[in-house]
């Protein structure tokens, strides 16, 4: 992709720099400012959710009840999931989309800048509402992030706060996604056809579609919970002709595409980074696009694999099992394409590349355990055990979170104009990569041996692996303080980054200065 970026001095009367003082952050309509807000918010929530995880792992360090009451333990598992999914990983991806999509497609800004501000500024309110449930009568929601009735209906004063914070977060995600789709469809530079778009843009394009299609369904599901509890409806009450299992169907119709919402942008990030450090174009670009679209399509017809043990007709079990295993095909295409991109490449291993390779290897482990879980008769054994916990943490932590960290190392020099400390970055990678495996790999074993998830105490035969896992958790958690340190250090100063930053980097974003001007591409470049 050759770009002729035309950089103009800002003479036009439409252009304006950032507002002075802290009001800048409240009132900004600038995609870079809003992206920055999203990313800092996400980092903060990453530590909030991480602290909750450490409470869980501290309690599980030894069998028996040590530190917290079972009720509080359940609040921690529930809140850890909600915070990490809705307040850490999703905002991180939206922040990256805000920062990078306009730069990558040569757009002046996001398509709907005022709405963009609102998408972000709902988040602090919604997250405060959600996290403050820890301090109300009856404590935070403790029935699991999946909010299954009838259990979730026993939540105390936190219940309506949970429901409405989900509504608010949904509004934020839907508006953010509408903005991303409108930007991609309407603001691409002349000559940038769909099949020339960088893969990060493509994966977000498809992710935004998934979000718009599924977040309203979640809103409907939690609205029915609310009316069942307070207004006497019988959606999930068999006595009135409803069915608690119906909630699970509606929830997972949202929930499974949500899984891909959490991973598709990560695929996009890795597909940007590997070609840069392999110094080769991405292998199989168009197959990557089609694979992403196939995964998105399949994500709508596999939801009940989360419910194999709940009681379904056998035909449904078989259908959802087969459809789920089909997902391995496009996902395999992606993994093989990343490996083929590296094949005979002139590779170097800077921190973003290390995280990207870590992603490919460890995401694949999570993919394989997912394939095991897809087999309905086997899932009867694995369901709700630590094997499931190990599976989804492999795809989410060394998967999604590693990709986010890779992207921060990759684009941080572009954002702030300074190189991060490469040595510290590499140490951060190796600590993370080692501890994340110490943390999650033993959970496969205790899960297969039968340890159920979401319990504060366990039989003594699980003690050793739990202790190892907890040591990994604290190692991983404290290693992330390094990440915050490295980022802050780079923002405050450091070696000046060049425009291209990385020798092998291709694409429009690298034609701008580092950091880019407040308004980039006021005049669009032409793509040949």
């Amino acid at each position: 992709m050759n770009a002729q970026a035309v950089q103009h001095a800002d003479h036009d009367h439409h252009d304006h720099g950032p507002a002075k003082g802290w009001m800048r952050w409240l009132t900004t309509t600038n995609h870079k400012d809003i992206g920055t807000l999203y990313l800092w918010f996400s980092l903060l929530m990453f530590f909030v959710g991480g602290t909750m995880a450490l409470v869980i792992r501290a309690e599980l360090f030894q069998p028996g009840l040590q530190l917290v009451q079972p009720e509080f333990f359940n609040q921690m598992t529930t809140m850890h999931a909600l915070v990490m999914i809705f307040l850490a990983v999703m905002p991180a991806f939206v922040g990256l989309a805000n920062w990078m999509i306009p730069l990558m497609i040569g757009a002046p800004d996001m398509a709907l800048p005022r709405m963009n501000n609102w998408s972000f500024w709902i988040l602090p309110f919604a997250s405060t509402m959600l996290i403050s449930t820890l301090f109300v009568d009856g404590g935070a929601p403790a029935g699991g992030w999946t909010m299954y009735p009838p259990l979730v209906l026993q939540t105390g004063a936190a219940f309506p706060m949970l429901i409405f914070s989900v509504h608010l977060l949904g509004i934020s995600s839907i508006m953010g996604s509408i903005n991303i789709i409108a930007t991609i469809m309407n603001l691409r530079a002349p000559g940038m056809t769909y099949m020339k778009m960088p893969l990060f843009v493509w994966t977000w394009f498809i992710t935004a579609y998934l979000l718009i299609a599924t977040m309203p369904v979640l809103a409907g599901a939690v609205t029915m919970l609310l009316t069942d509890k307070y207004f006497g409806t019988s959606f999930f009450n068999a006595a009135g002709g409803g069915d608690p299992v119906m909630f699970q169907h509606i929830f997972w119709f949202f929930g499974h595409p949500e899984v891909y919402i959490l991973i598709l942008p990560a695929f996009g990030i890795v597909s940007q980074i590997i070609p840069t450090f392999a110094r080769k174009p991405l292998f199989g670009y168009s197959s990557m696009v089609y694979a992403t679209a196939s995964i998105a399509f399949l994500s709508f017809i596999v939801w009940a694999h989360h419910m194999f043990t709940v009681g379904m007709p056998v035909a449904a079990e078989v259908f959802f099992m087969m459809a789920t295993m089909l997902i391995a095909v496009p996902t395999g295409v992606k993994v093989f394409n990343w490996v083929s991109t590296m094949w005979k490449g002139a590779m170097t291993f800077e921190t973003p590349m290390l995280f990207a390779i870590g992603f490919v290897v460890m995401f694949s482990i999570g993919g394989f355990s997912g394939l095991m879980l897809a087999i309905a008769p086997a899932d009867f054994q694995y369901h709700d055990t630590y094997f499931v916990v190990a599976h989804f943490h492999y795809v989410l932590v060394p998967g999604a979170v590693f990709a986010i960290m890779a992207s921060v190392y990759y684009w941080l020099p572009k954002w702030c104009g300074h190189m991060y400390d490469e040595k510290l970055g590499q140490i951060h990678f190796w600590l993370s990569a080692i501890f994340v495996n110490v943390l999650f790999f033993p959970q496969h074993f205790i899960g297969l041996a039968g340890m159920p998830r979401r319990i504060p105490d366990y039989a003594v035969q699980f003690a050793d692996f739990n202790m190892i896992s907890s040591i990994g958790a604290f190692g991983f958690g404290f290693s992330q303080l390094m990440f915050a340190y490295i980022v802050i250090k780079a923002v405050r100063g450091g070696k000046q980054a060049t425009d291209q930053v990385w020798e092998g980097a291709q694409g429009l974003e690298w034609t701008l200065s580092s950091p880019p001007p407040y308004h980039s591409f006021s005049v669009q470049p032409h793509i040949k």
Partner: protein
Amino acid sequence: MASSSNDAPHYYVPHQTIWPFMMSVGLTGLVLGFIHYLNGDSGTFLMLAGAGLLIYTLFRWFGEVISESEGRQYGKWEDGSFRLGMSWFIFSEVMFFAAFFGALFYARTLSVPWLGGAGEEAETHNLLWNTYQAIWPTNGPADVGGEFEAMPAWGLPAINTLLLLSSGATVTWAHHALKANNRQHLIYGLAATVGLGFLFVILQAVEYSHAYHEMNLTLHSGIYGSTFYMLTGFHGMHVTLGAIILTVVLFRAIKGHFTPQNHFAFEAAAWYWHFVDVVWLGLFIFVYWL
């Protein structure tokens, strides 16, 4: 789109604005008040204050957009973003209704028959309610909410169908008039649409009152009452919202806004109105008729 670097069109990026932040404050106040109310405390003041701020902010925010539009700040390029934004917003609304239609279909084709003993392993039927017969409409095996009458399709609902379908026609009439620069017919068409829309809402209120007082059909009437009120209620709220949007468009038309070439707000309101119309047809068929 841009053809050469000097005479390239300039995308309008608005200046700093406080309205989105104020929207969040208002919305949070509204929701927190409601949360207090649901938890048995008094949240009325917070709710009203939040709603007030929300409405004021919407007024100012849209006011700003309208004056920018009238000030010719938007060209074809910005117009494209607005169109995409509105289309995808309507798609998200479709998916919101899909959740409730899904609940209705699931109950009617799966869970209610299972409660009545369909399938081989329906133990709820054998062990708990072995005399229950699954006949729609139902309030479930425990007769939740007591005996009730189902809402027949061919009374008020049929009239409401006619009202909404005619309002779809009148809004199209207004659109044709706008494109032909016939301002008078534009205003007549819009006024008729708004009138039909609010008449629909009034008739639905009459229907609800009838259902509550004479048919014992309430939100408590098991799965039938739940799906009936949830679907028609959310639809009614959307009709009300659509009618308010059309009212704003009507006032703008009276003030002389919109040109035959440039009238995105009108079109967005009309799209929304047609969406509400189509949802109603689904409701009429699956909730009232079948």
